């Protein structure tokens, strides 16, 4: 159970950071 939650939370953090990074890159290309 704890392993599953650790893997899931790791994926959550990765996804959020990736989304923010892509958004930043898109915004910088628009400028």
């Amino acid at each position, binding site marked *: 159970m704890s392993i599953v939650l650790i893997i899931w939370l790791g994926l959550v953090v990765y996804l*959020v950071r990736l989304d*923010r990074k*892509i958004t930043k890159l898109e915004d910088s*290309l628009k400028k």
Partner: protein
Amino acid sequence: MPKYFFWKIALLIWLTLVIVAGLLMPMVPVPHAWYELPIIPALEDKARIIFFHVPMSWTTLVAFIASMVYGILFLKTKKMDYDLRSVSAAGLGTMFCVLATVTGSIWAKFNWGSFWNWDPRETSIFVLLLIYGAYFTLRSAIDVDEKKATLSAVYSVIAGVTAPFFIFVMPRIMTGLHPGAKGDEAGSTPVAQLHMPANMQVVFFASIVGFTLLYFWFFNLKVRSARLEQSIHQP
């Protein structure tokens, strides 16, 4: 802040609750409380896989059908963005297919004693993985973008037609170990006819919805990062 940021955080909280519910809701012989699930004879705790393995298979199908639809749109319009979306969907479909296969294999080890048994369900999912493996091999063998996109689109249409057959039909018309095989029609009723208690249905459908929305988010990220890569290489 990324678009729809709060919806995405809500989805992640939703799926966290699904995972916690799916793994922690106690299984008892006679449920009394809303959070208690009934013990399914011969499966017991192994039944929890239904909250993850089935939604992954469902998401595989959604992704492969999406790849087919974008393939058709590319063939109609010749817009390269549709090819980008088609290959992104196919990639994600393959990823979810691998996850469904892995979770199924783990369940098979506990239930049938070995990870792989060449059961019709296992064989059909393996064939599906080979079909989409060939899709990526085809793409990597062609250098010209327009030709690559056209052939991939045609392939994705044919592959997309086979996906429902390998996921829904073939495992049910052959005898096998997996629940729902020919001769064990009752084994498919928990999913196909919703013969599960209401609280179990809530977690199950919450998982289906969550995984589907997660797929759309992955797809969105994949397409956006591919477009960024294109604009950097071809300004």
